């Protein structure tokens, strides 16, 4: 027994995130403060004493869109290197300290950003800041660490892509939808390119993209803003600014004809149809209208595709999808897993019939309400944790230069009208604008287990 306990009860009064009444029910307002450090690091703080928790997120303005040909998967491989140690933190010590003190943490990479976060009991604020500052300032870069994480990332690829049914289909589709290299390749990258990454690549990437002036830090939770900012300045302000990284050309030529591919999949047992309609960047009026459209078409059991394909015609075991949010042109995705014996062409026809109906007649009042209420519930539930508030605000600052989207996003959804939905359906859901990938199960002959 090495623990002795001494209790000191501190009554904690619930200081709510400021709340106001809105017409459709109570909404939540997040009071935030922005501070820019001398080295360009953008800092957003949100005090919230409702639970003894602090959450920190640092989002770097770099993702797979910044990669060059021959180095696909590099932004994500680099993310793994951020857990392999810095001047004062040993390899693996970052997550060792977070988890062993009752916290949680992770890092994720997508096309448009790389984000790192921790949530910890509020008495570990100094630890969280120290961990993030030390690696931003002094990442250890060596071949042993790179080779080790190259292995881990290649296993991540096998786990999610190469050893799963339909794994290659997503990759093929992404390569087909886009013409611009920025989005034309996957975040996980190819095995060859992962093998090609060098220590020099890591050092150059770190210097350019992991500079304070290319990042946003958001801190949410149970702390005093003045004290926290003092500590943040102390830990981060000494990290030197770097020249701004080159901007990425995201222009995407207009698609003129349908694109199509067929994938033979040794691991799949049922055919699958994946359809994507190229559309617009996130946080635009058409984006929000496409989100509402997607909810009507394919979210939940009341959706048009579920009712038609799963229930009425019994063509598929599952159908669903979403409007993807990206800084560059996103796409509306639909995916259907077919029942045995059903033809892919019949499933495509059934999907296109529903889309044509929606284009011709628009959506019903209840469908508009559904999209708005569902968005609102999801958004508000998400706001429950300090961590998701921190991540969202950092990401929205990096994507749209607008952390306050946390207070305005629901309004943007609520302004969408039925006419908007019908308009974007006709504008983007055209045959010439779609990319279709059909996966066909092609089991490898199990020769080795055939009885002699």
């Amino acid at each position, binding site marked *: *027994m*090495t*623990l002795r*306990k*001494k*209790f*000191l009860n501190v009554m*904690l009064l*619930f200081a*709510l995130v400021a*709340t106001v009444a809105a017409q459709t029910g*109570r909404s*939540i307002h997040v009071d935030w403060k922005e501070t820019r450090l001398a080295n360009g690091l953008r800092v957003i703080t949100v005090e919230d004493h*409702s*639970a*003894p*928790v602090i959450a920190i997120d640092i989002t770097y303005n770099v993702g797979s869109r910044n990669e060059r040909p021959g180095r696909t998967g590099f932004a994500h491989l680099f993310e793994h290197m951020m857990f392999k*140690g810095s001047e004062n933190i*040993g390899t*693996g*010590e970052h997550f*060792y300290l*977070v988890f*062993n*003190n*009752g916290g*949680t943490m992770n890092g994720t990479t997508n096309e448009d950003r790389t984000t790192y976060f921790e949530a910890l*009991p509020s*008495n570990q604020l*100094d*630890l969280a800041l120290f961990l993030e500052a030390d690696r931003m300032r002094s990442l250890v870069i060596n071949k042993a660490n790179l*080779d080790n994480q190259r*292995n*881990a990332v*290649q*296993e991540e690829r*096998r786990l999610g892509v190469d*050893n*799963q049914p339909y794994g290659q289909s997503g990759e093929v589709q992404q390569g087909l939808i886009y013409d611009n290299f920025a989005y034309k390749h996957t975040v996980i990258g190819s095995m060859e390119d992962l093998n090609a990454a060098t220590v020099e690549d890591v050092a150059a990437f770190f210097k350019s993209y992991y500079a304070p002036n290319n990042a946003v830090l958001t801190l949410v939770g149970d702390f005093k803003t003045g004290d926290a900012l003092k500590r943040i300045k102390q830990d981060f302000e000494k990290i030197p600014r770097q020249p701004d990284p080159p901007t990425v050309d995201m222009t995407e030529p207009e698609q003129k004809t349908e694109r199509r591919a067929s994938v033979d999949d*040794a*691991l799949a*047992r*049922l055919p699958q149809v994946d359809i994507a309609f190229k559309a617009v960047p996130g946080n635009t009026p058409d984006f929000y209208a496409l989100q509402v459209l997607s909810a009507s078409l394919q979210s939940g*059991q009341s959706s048009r595709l579920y009712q038609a394909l799963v*229930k009425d015609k*019994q063509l598929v*075991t*599952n159908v669903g999808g979403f409007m993807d949010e990206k800084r560059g042109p996103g796409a509306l995705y639909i995916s259907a897993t077919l029942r045995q014996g059903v033809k892919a062409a019949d499933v495509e026809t059934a999907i296109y019939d529903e889309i044509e109906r929606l284009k011709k007649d628009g959506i019903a009042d*209840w469908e508009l309400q559904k999209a708005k*209420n569902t*968005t609102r*519930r999801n958004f*508000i*539930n998400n706001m*429950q944790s300090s961590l998701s508030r921190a991540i969202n605000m950092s990401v929205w600052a990096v994507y749209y230069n607008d952390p306050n989207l946390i207070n305005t996003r629901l309004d943007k959804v609520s302004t969408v009208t039925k006419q908007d939905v019908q308009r974007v359906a006709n504008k983007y859901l055209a045959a010439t604008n779609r990319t279709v990938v059909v996966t066909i199960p092609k*089991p490898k002959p*199990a020769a*080795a*287990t055939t*009885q002699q």
Partner: protein
Amino acid sequence: MKNLRVLMKRTFAAIALVVLAFSITSAQRAGTPQQGQSVKGADIKGRAPVNKEILKVSLPKGQETTLANGLRVILLESHRVPTFTVQMVVLSGGLADPTDYHGLASFTAALLREGTATRKSKDIAEQMDTIGATLGSTAGLSSLTSTITTSGLIENLDQALDVFADVIRNPKFPQEEVDKYKARQLQQLQFQRSIPQFLAQERFQRAIYGDHPAGLVVPPTESIKRITSADLAGFHSTYYRPNNAMLAIVGDVTLKEIMPKLERAFGDWQKSDVPATKIPAAPAPGAMRIQLINRPGSVQTVLQLGNLGIERTNPDYFAVLVMNQILGGGPAARLFLNLREDKGYTYGAYSNFGGSKFRGTVTSSSEVRTDVTEGAMHEFMYELNRMRDEKVSATELENAKRALIGSFALSLEQPQALLQNIVVQKIYDMPADYWDVYPQKVTAITAEDVQRVAQKYIDMGHLQIVAVGDATKTRGVLAKYGTVQEFDAEGKPVEPMKN
């Protein structure tokens, strides 16, 4: 001004509640934790500013009452956000399925929403989706309970409760919907069996539990074909009774506000005698076995190794909890640090344990690229034996406790998880202060306790090893650990080709 008044009212309400109080535990110990100690796979420099105190939190308490028909109600007020979650926990699940009718409880739960006396399946979906509310219902094949859950925005609570009560009380199980659901399940199984982790889980459960209901992950095809609308109606009428259920609620609502709504929704729900469910004991552990599912085309081997564990209420629970934390409870645990951080064999390696009113399992698992299957097996066996043969270090023990106790602070931001804690305490008839003394029980665990339960529940003589991968490249490697039995994805034994 109007907004300000509302704001003040809200704040006062919140203060009056004082949902939680927290205190500081001073963890005074001989050494400084986490300093200058390196472990396999991690280099611990010990220079980061770690606060030695574990923030001790008190979990908010639920309020309880009972309707006249015996329906127990538990409310956990949470005013963080204007939402609700309402969960009906019917105290009969898959364990109440008659033999030959595996899946009856599961199908009953799933089909509640497919039609009532006054609503068609589509009406139910549309009404709930329109208000942005969720509706889900589930029962496992070996579960103690069937649960039906709705969640949504608090301003839509009345409409959601209306549909929720209707599907729980008046389901009709239309034969057409039953047939569609059955056909969908059989098709879905094709998809599931293309996923390697699913195949591993199916084989592992069978290896541990044999013919016990927990030996099944999906209902047998014969069972699916046999079940009729009348069977579902029978299960529903027998077990879905207010005196055999509890209603667990968390959200932005007070007991005074919600009770009239619950009376309206469930007050005239008829009680009835419900037959007791006999809990079948898990079978005695079989001899150590290695089972390989051949999945041609695999580039990884999914490995799952484990034994029979403990019941949820076993006094060894806290020792097993700490042991699991050290062995594979997360990225800071031995399996992850060894197999991923040190060896680079995998994206992740973890251990897990669970228990019901019958014995659960203690398992370790990972996905590794095919050509390191041998190395991964070696490390798994090394780590399992090490848990048994050596006492864990003072630092590891301390870290595990800090992780387990410290994480309670974060749970305060997840009211739905707190409600689940209360439900667990009720289902297993645990003492009312179970979650309050939980940190003390964790604190009391010693290195000797950990080794004792490791020797008891990591039983190498009865270890069940399941691998899913390319048999041509893995059967030889696995054979070094014992006789390998091979299966196809359908679970049928196959004869390996001699080569």
